[in-house]
């Protein structure tokens, strides 16, 4: 029997599992941080964690609230200047997966973390790029973790902070080739309802529904007519061990799962 779990917990667990087999992961602030730290303790113990703060090979003894926490430094393989981290590790092409959160995403995986509304007179001022724009362009592939809602999964994002598949796969492939980008763009979006991959057209496609989530709820929380796999899988529920890691080790105060 499996314990009850929240949608946030399912999302984090599903995101962590997607990292199985990945070698070098660039860890973004917020939800990516807990998902990657869970993966490191479960499916990808050998995965190297890279933090934009300038850390390669981090072994955080606790879940860092920020991505510049002292626990990512002590016992790490290397601490570098941010110049070196961004220039040699990221732009140099050494990152396999860049893991991002987002405020808005469109069907092609283009991301907005800058403003809601007009740029000059925003309704909501969001954090901005940070390293996200660089991660989206330079990481070999991009994973996204975010909650679905009609305000976040939108037909048209208010500001393109981080490019995804641009206007579609063909368009994106041409531009990436012409401009010498190393990355192949977004490959998975994990939400509180399911797991989306990108199809041949470069569009998000729902491949797995989390336990309890329905196609109806997916449609209600999305601003376009979504593509869905003919027979979406059901995401396996979190295991007791995954839940224990989240609840006891990683986020005992429920900062990420509230």
């Amino acid at each position, binding site marked *: 029997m499996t314990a009850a779990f929240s949608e946030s917990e399912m999302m984090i667990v599903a995101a962590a599992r997607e990292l199985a087999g990945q070698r070098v992961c660039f860890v973004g602030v917020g939800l990516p941080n807990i998902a990657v730290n869970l993966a490191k303790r479960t499916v990808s113990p050998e995965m190297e964690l890279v933090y934009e703060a300038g850390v390669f090979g981090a072994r955080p003894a606790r879940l860092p609230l920020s991505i510049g926490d002292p626990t990512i430094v002590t016992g790490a393989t290397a601490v570098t*200047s*941010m110049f070196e981290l961004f220039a040699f590790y990221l732009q140099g092409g050494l990152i396999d997966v860049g893991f991002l959160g987002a405020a808005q995403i469109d069907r092609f995986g283009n991301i907005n973390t800058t403003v809601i509304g007009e740029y000059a007179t925003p309704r*909501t*001022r969001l*954090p901005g790029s940070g390293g996200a724009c660089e991660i989206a362009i330079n990481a070999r592939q991009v994973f996204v973790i975010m909650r679905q809602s009609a305000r976040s999964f939108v037909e048209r994002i208010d500001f*393109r*902070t981080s490019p995804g598949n641009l206007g579609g796969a063909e368009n994106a492939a041409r531009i990436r080739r012409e401009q010498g980008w190393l990355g192949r763009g977004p490959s998975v979006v994990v939400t509180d309802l399911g797991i989306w991959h990108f199809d041949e057209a470069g569009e998000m496609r729902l491949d797995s529904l989390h336990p309890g989530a329905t196609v109806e709820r997916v449609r209600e929380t999305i601003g376009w007519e979504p593509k869905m796999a003919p027979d979406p899988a059901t995401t396996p529920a979190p295991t007791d061990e995954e839940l224990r890691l989240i609840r006891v080790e990683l986020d005992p105060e429920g900062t990420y799962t509230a």
Partner: protein
Amino acid sequence: MSSKVASMRDAIADLVRDGDTVAIEGFTHLISFAAGHEIIRQRKRDLTLARLTPDVVYDQMVAAGVARKLIFSWLGNPGVGGLGAIRRVTEGPLPALELEEYSHFGMVARYTAGAANLPFFPIRSYFETDLPSANPLIRPVESPYGDGVVYAVPPLKPDVTVVHAQRASAVGDTQVWGLLGCQKEAAFAADRVIVVVEELVADEVVRADPNRTIIPGLIVDAVVVEPWGAHPSYVQGAYDRDNRFYLDWDPISRSAEATEAWLREWVRELDDRAAYVEKLGPERVSSLRPGRAPSGVVDYGVYR
């Protein structure tokens, strides 16, 4: 060289002028809240504040009215949410704070160009994003080798850069371990540099390990000895990040009144950092002390 040791009050009074571009750098690590608070106490005006991550320190400074503009790449309270004071003056129909926005690498590249006296720095960011249209200082530049276009950012040369560090000598030779951020680049790019340290050390301590020096006294104007000057940020090996403070700041900064009350209680009515640490209390302070993780020793060798 003679000693540059100064009080924070004198250092800020002498080196920070109204209208200056000021960079209090440090990526999560080593953020000089003490310098920010002294700037608030001295009621500096019209500052342009540069920082990759404006963080709580700039939220406090913006709330206190010292800033007219931010140059930045990520505007938030890491892992917690937004910065209330900054949001109040940047959202809605009549923003009262000017924003000049880059990505992290763009900001780092700006400081690097400033430090290296380069007219621009090329990076592969910004393609197919809306950032160049939001910020016309992000401009394309063509490779002279016929292999396409990259974006450039312009040099950023702060009037004053403030760096918190584990230790420095009296002449300002400064050593840091743990996250390095872009403090080195921001310091070399600046006209004036204030170094704030946990500990003043003898010249010989610095010279015993020259590879740890990130800033030479040559470019330093004042050395302020201010233990706990980075709280609620942290100092690797000395004290932990006070995450509780960052979480507590969220509801405070959502209210203009609560923010002003906080500034009065924790900044304006205190004389200096020592008073702040005393007010913080020994229990809070000791709860932030880490265990020991020694680096080990390496040998440089004597060569006569």
